[in-house]
């Protein structure tokens, strides 16, 4: 009598439990299971996607959609949730926790929970301010003296008072330590001991030798001017490390609404409410930041409700998540421009012009960024002061590219290298489109995917230009709304290699001269005129990079999160102190 199927399976299971299955039996059953799985998946997918006739590739700029406007409540009343944890996701670790050293977007997003600037940008504006550590501020008519009135009851997380002397000591440290974003302060303050004065315990005055219309904007930057505890610095400084940077790189002592309770830089950070916070306590009891490297995992955590906020998704995921009623995808215009840096020492002017014509501009904007970007004519976005709309943009023209490359001495079959960080599906797609365009004119582009940390190390390290690739993918937004601040770290010859962010070693004396003039420009008209001249040179006459898009960003939040206000300067950050969760 033939063995009945259930008995056969039972026998199989018993054998498996007893470890008596042969390798051949395991392979045989594994094969059956493996072959049947795609078929089942196909059937399930076919049932789940009846309208999947064409790829979901909208080409227009995404709208805010059906989600509530930032900060708005759909019901008009505040029904507060009992769940007071807010879990956010990062795409990589935050190895440096020193806010006056880290020049990293994810680090700054983290810092806004536990550190404070004197003032911060108000709402979506890039030139209006609201209180943070300072309750009031003013300046004289000449814009050479700026006075800040501090919160009288402000304390650091270590219990020491945050008075005017402490804030001055923190700014002296920021300026003198000369790490990371220190250009934010060095532009205005060269001698902090003299220029910063603690008038009384709550009054701090900054004096500048010439009018500085952008000083308040710089002081509101989330990169650098955050106040750290001088008592902690004194306690942990060493002879080799007089500013206790090594200690602050691993510890957090600020004045913000949250204090750190767990910091595992490559895994997670946990913050809890600081009971002695000087202003109104925030809604959330805890902020938990988790490091999740995989795009797909971050999306899964958001969709399952395990995480409540994330600003790091590729365009394809953002478009898909807009269909999820459990999420709100909040799009916002930014000051970010993405570009492909061209190695100034390896590529002559005509070659760089030729490559700029070979970039697939429209395909990238329409089909890769899916509308999360628009054409731009240089490094200055239309949201930043100094933008000049009269400068034309490139369009893809392979014939022109070939002609210029031939004139540059590039021969068919020559090979070039393009390096980008692995893990970004968007960048990988752009790189391959560029590679395909170059292949059409007989040029080989070798793609090199490296991990993000390695790319950052190469970009901002001391490697000479000869050891760097021909092209690297990147992007930038200013620390505050100013064209000089956007260009100086990236394209001035003083900023090459580890001295700044000029990783392509762009060195044009005329651009240097104009940038130096721009740094001390006194009026909006002068800023616009100088910026226009620089952008024209860097885009057309002596290209520094392929400027391919001004980026629209999106932050994805759980449906019940309220009070989030995006800001085009504080990109991918959160206004934790204003956010809350609605009871559902």
């Amino acid at each position, binding site marked *: 009598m033939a063995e009945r199927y259930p008995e056969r399976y039972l026998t199989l299971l018993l054998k498996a439990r007893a470890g008596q299955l042969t390798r051949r039996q395991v392979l045989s059953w594994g094969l059956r299971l493996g072959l049947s799985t795609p078929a089942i998946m*196909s059937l399930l997918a076919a049932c789940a996607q009846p309208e999947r006739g064409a790829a979901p590739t909208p080409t227009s700029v995404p709208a805010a959609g059906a989600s509530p406007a930032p900060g708005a409540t759909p019901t008009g009343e505040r029904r507060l949730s009992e769940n007071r944890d807010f879990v956010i996701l990062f795409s990589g670790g935050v190895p440096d926790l020193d806010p006056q050293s880290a020049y990293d977007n994810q680090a700054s997003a983290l810092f806004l929970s536990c550190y404070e600037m004197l003032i911060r940008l108000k709402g979506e504006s890039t030139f209006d301010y609201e209180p943070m550590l300072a309750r009031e501020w003013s300046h004289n008519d000449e814009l050479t003296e700026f006075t800040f009135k501090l919160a009288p009851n402000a304390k650091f997380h270590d219990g020491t008072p945050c008075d005017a002397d402490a804030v001055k000591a923190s700014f002296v440290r920021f300026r003198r330590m000369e790490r990371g974003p220190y250009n934010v302060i060095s532009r205005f303050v060269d001698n902090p001991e003299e220029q910063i004065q603690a008038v009384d315990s709550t009054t701090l005055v900054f004096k500048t030798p010439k009018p500085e219309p952008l000083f308040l904007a710089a002081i509101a930057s989330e990169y650098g001017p955050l106040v750290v505890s001088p008592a902690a610095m004194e306690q942990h400084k060493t002879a080799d490390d007089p500013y206790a940077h090594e200690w602050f790189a691993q510890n957090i002592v600020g004045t913000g609404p949250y204090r750190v309770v767990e910091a595992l830089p490559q895994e997670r950070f946990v913050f809890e409410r600081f009971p002695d916070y000087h202003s109104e306590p925030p809604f959330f009891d805890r902020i938990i930041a988790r490091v999740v490297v995989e795009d797909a995992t971050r999306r899964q955590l958001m969709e399952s409700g395990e995480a409540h906020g994330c600003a790091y998704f590729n365009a394809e995921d953002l478009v898909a998540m807009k269909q999820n009623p459990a999420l709100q995808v909040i799009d916002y215009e930014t000051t970010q421009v993405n570009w492909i840096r061209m190695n100034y020492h390896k590529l002559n002017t005509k070659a760089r012009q030729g490559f700029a014509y070979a970039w697939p501009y429209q*395909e990238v904007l329409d089909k890769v960024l899916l509308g999360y970007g628009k054409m731009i004519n240089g490094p200055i976005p239309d949201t930043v002061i100094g933008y000049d709309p009269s400068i034309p943009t490139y369009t893809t023209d392979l014939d022109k590219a070939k002609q210029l490359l031939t004139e540059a001495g590039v021969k068919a079959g020559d090979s070039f290298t393009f390096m980008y960080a692995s893990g970004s599906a968007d960048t990988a797609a752009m790189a*391959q489109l560029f590679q395909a365009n170059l292949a059409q004119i007989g040029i080989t582009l070798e793609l090199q995917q490296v991990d993000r940390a390695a790319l950052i190390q190469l970009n901002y390290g001391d490697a000479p230009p000869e050891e760097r690739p021909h092209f690297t993918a990147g992007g930038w937004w200013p620390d505050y709304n100013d064209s000089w601040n956007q260009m100086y770290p990236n394209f001035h010859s003083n900023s090459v290699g580890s001295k700044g962010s000029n990783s392509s070693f762009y060195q044009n004396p005329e651009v240097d001269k104009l940038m130096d003039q721009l740094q001390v420009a006194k009026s909006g008209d002068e800023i616009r005129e100088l910026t226009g001249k620089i952008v024209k040179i860097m885009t057309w006459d002596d290209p520094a990079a392929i400027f391919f898009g001004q980026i629209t960003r999106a932050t994805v939040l759980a449906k019940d999160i309220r009070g989030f206000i995006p800001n085009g300067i504080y990109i991918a950050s959160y206004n934790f102190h204003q956010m809350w969760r609605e009871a559902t």
Partner: protein
Amino acid sequence: MTAEPQTTEQRPLVLGLAEREVRRQGPLAWVVAFARQSPLNVLALLLILLFLFLVAFGSALAPHDPVKPNIQVKLHPPSSTYWFGTDELGRDILSRVMSGAKYSLGIAFIILSIALVVGVLVGALAGYLGGLVDEVLMRITDLFLAFPALILAMAIAATLGRNLQNVVIALTAVYWPWYARLVRGQVLAIKEREFVEAARAVGATPERVMLRHILPNTMAPVIVQLTIDVGYAVLATAGLSFLGLGAQPPLPEWGTMIAGARTFFREAWWYISFPGLALTLTVVGFNLLGDGLRDYFDPRSRRH
């Protein structure tokens, strides 16, 4: 005296039997006999034939250009035009899977060929010469075996640079010690046997003894090991490419394709499924072949 068969010593005789059968029946008849032993052997042969065919002709027969983007049809689901759908750049996944066989499988063959030559040479010398040579060669072998295989391969590939040539070097460094160990054991067992003594007695040179009498008789377990390792080598190649250490875009290597697809698997199931299926079937095919050969060479499980 034990009644249990000494399998290590029987294998050369079994291979001798198999060789005699191949010579007597011809290779085709031997394949038929092998296939008749089990339906899984038939499946293994069919799968391997299919993928070997793709290695040879996959690129030529691909219906679309496997490399050139056509972004207007990005992430198109399977249809009559694109049987396996398209990827995020609009490239035909069927064409990429077909063309990818020569990278994924071809690289595995190259890796194992080099590993086999190096491993057999080292193992044979160590086993036959013994003494100090054996000690030195085996300690070098132990040095490579002391590291976890994939970690060692990742370290080598990451140090040398990210491309397929370096994957070959990295995985060859991982695989050759296993063959050296295997062959050394076989040589140690065979070199004391009567027929080897007889060969020496009639004045055969050491080279002749090694090449004509010992090495051919070590090949049965090596062939079985080789067939099983092909699957693992394909997986390891794909694994390194998945991690970004192997094939670089736009090469349609299966591991690279799976790495690129993981971002899109929620919206485009076909993108990750078909290269994954190709990888699975290749590994299963070679594993089944390895098992089938082992059973075929083993008189205890052989059916007549």
